[in-house]
C-alpha cells in the first residue's frame, strides 16, 4: 500500500548487528540522553516562592470599585446579576441617608452585595453589563481555596476596594496588622 503522508517508515526485520546485540552502545546512548536532561533547565515553578505570571487578560477575583473621592460606585441596579449566566450574584438595594454622600456616589446603593465564587464562572459578563464601571474582574487575583462552602460567598467586606491599608485584603483574605503596616510604608 502506498503511503499517503510520505512519513511512513518501512521496517525491515534484519538480524541485529554485533553492536546492537552487545547492548552497550545503546545503553550509552540512553545514558547520554538522561545526562542531557540532567543539565537542562527544570520546568518546575516552586509555587509559594515563585508564581507563574498571569495573562494580562486574565479574569480573576471581582472587585467593587470606588470613585476618585472614595465613594462606592455601585448603585445596586442589578444588571450584573441579570447578566450573570451562573446566577452567582445577589444584592440588596438601599437608599442613601443624609450624611452618607461621602460613602456612596448615587442615591441608591448596595446594602449587601454577594458573589458566590463556587458558582461564578469568571466570564466577565458582569463587568461588561455594569453601567457605573463598578465591578471588575482583577487580572492578578483569584479566589483561594477554602475549607467551607460558605467561605466562598464573598460579601462587600471582601469585594469592595478598600480605602485604608488596614481594611485592604490580599487575595480575599484580610491583611494582618503587620501586613497593613508594611503596605502603609510602601504607600508612603
Amino acid at each position, binding site marked *: 500500500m502506498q503511503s499517503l503522508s510520505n512519513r511512513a517508515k518501512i521496517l525491515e526485520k534484519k538480524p541485529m548487528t554485533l553492536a546492537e546485540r552487545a547492548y*552497550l552502545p545503546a*545503553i550509552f546512548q*540512553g*545514558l547520554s*540522553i*538522561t*545526562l542531557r*536532561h*540532567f543539565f*537542562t533547565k*527544570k*520546568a*518546575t515553578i*516552586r509555587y509559594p516562592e515563585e508564581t507563574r505570571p498571569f495573562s494580562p487578560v486574565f479574569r480573576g477575583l471581582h472587585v467593587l470599585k470606588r470613585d476618585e473621592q472614595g465613594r462606592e460606585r455601585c448603585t445596586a441596579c442589578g444588571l450584573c446579576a441579570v447578566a450573570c449566566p451562573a446566577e452567582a450574584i445577589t444584592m440588596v438595594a438601599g437608599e442613601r441617608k443624609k450624611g452618607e454622600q461621602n460613602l456612596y456616589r448615587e442615591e441608591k446603593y448596595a446594602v449587601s452585595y454577594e458573589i458566590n465564587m463556587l458558582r461564578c464562572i469568571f466570564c466577565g459578563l458582569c463587568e461588561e453589563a455594569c453601567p457605573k464601571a463598578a465591578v471588575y474582574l482583577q487580572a492578578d487575583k483569584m479566589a483561594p481555596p477554602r475549607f467551607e462552602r460558605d467561605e466562598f460567598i464573598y460579601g462587600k467586606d471582601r469585594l469592595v476596594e478598600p480605602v485604608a491599608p488596614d481594611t485592604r485584603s490580599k487575595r480575599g483574605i484580610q491583611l494582618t496588622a503587620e501586613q497593613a503596616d508594611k503596605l502603609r510604608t510602601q504607600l508612603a
Partner: protein
Amino acid sequence: MTFETLGWQGLVILVVFGLSLLIATYCTYAERVIAAFMQDRVGPDRAGPYGLAQPLADAVKMFTKEEFFPGGASKALFTLGPCLAMTTALMSSAVIPFGNAMQFGDTSVHLQGIEINVGMLYIFGVVSLGVYGVMIGGWASNNKFSLLGAIRAASQNISYELAMGLALIAVLMISGTLSLREITLQQTNPGAWHLGDIFAWNVFKQPIGFIIFLVCAFAETNRTPFDLPECETELVGGYHTEYSSMKLGLYLFSEYINILVVTAVMSVLYFGGFNYPFQYEFLDFLSNKAGLSADWAHNIFVLMGVVAMFMKIFMGIFFFMWVRWTLPRFRYDQLMRLGWTILIPLAIFNILLTGGLITTGIIK
C-alpha cells in the same frame, strides 16, 4: 599490634561506620534529586536548604510508623532478616583502604579498618552473606510475592557472583595479592610524574573485566536494570512487601550501603583507590616548596588520597543512580541468559586473554 595502634584502628573503624551510615542516608536524598533532575524536575527542596534535611524527615517518618508483623509470619526470622542485611552491609566496609598510612611521629595509622591479606575474599564472603538477609526476610513474611522476590534475589546473586569472581581472578593474576591495600599500592607509577600515572590503574589493563565487574555489581546490589527481587510492577515490593517502619528502612539502607561498598571496591580494584593524578608532584610541592615537616607533608598527601577515594566513590554512586533512571528492568530469563551464557564465558575468555598477555609480557 600495640594497644595504641589498636585504639587508632578502632577510631578509624568508628569513622568508617559513621561515614557509611551518613553517606547511605544522603544517598536516599541524592537518588531522589538525581531522579528528579533526569526527569526535568527539581526533587525534594522543602525540608531545609535545598531539601538537605529530607533524610532526617524520612528517618522520623520511618521510626514513627507502625511495626507490623503479618499473620503467620515467623517473628524471630522476620526481625532477623533486615538485621542480617544491615549487619553484612556494614561489615564489608571494614577492610576497604580509604587512604594510605598516616604518620604521627613513630605511630603510623592505616586509614583502613583492618589490614588483612585476604581482604578481597573477606569482602566477597560478607557480601554474598547479604543475600541471606533478603532470603530470610522474604521467606519469613509468609507471602508469595515476598518469597518470589527472595528466590529471585538468591538465584540472581549466585549467577552473578560467579561472573564477578571470574572477573576478579583476572585482576588477581595481575596483582598477585588478595590484599586490597597492596592492590591499591600497585596501581601507581612513581616514575611517571604526570597525568600518565592514571594509566597504571587496573581499568586500563582490564577493560573487559571491568565491564563484567560493573554489570555484576549492579546485579549484586539489586539495582536497576537488575532490580528483579523488589520490582514493584510484578511483585508488589518483592522481598520487603510485608515490611514497614524501620525494618523496611534497614533494608533500603542496606541497599545503599551495599552500593557504597561495591563502588569503593570498584575504585580500589580498577580505579587506583586512593591514588590520584599528579600525586607525586603534590607531595614534592608539599615537602620541598611549602616548607612543611616531612610528617605533615605526608599526612596532607594521604588526606588528599582519601578525598580522591571518596570522589571516585561518589562518582560511582552517581553512575549507579544515573543508570537506574535510564534503563528499564530486564526480564528474568534475559537476566539469567546474560549471566550464564554471556558474562561467564566472557569472563573465562578474559582470564585466558590476561594469562596470554602476562606470559607474553605485554601487561605486568
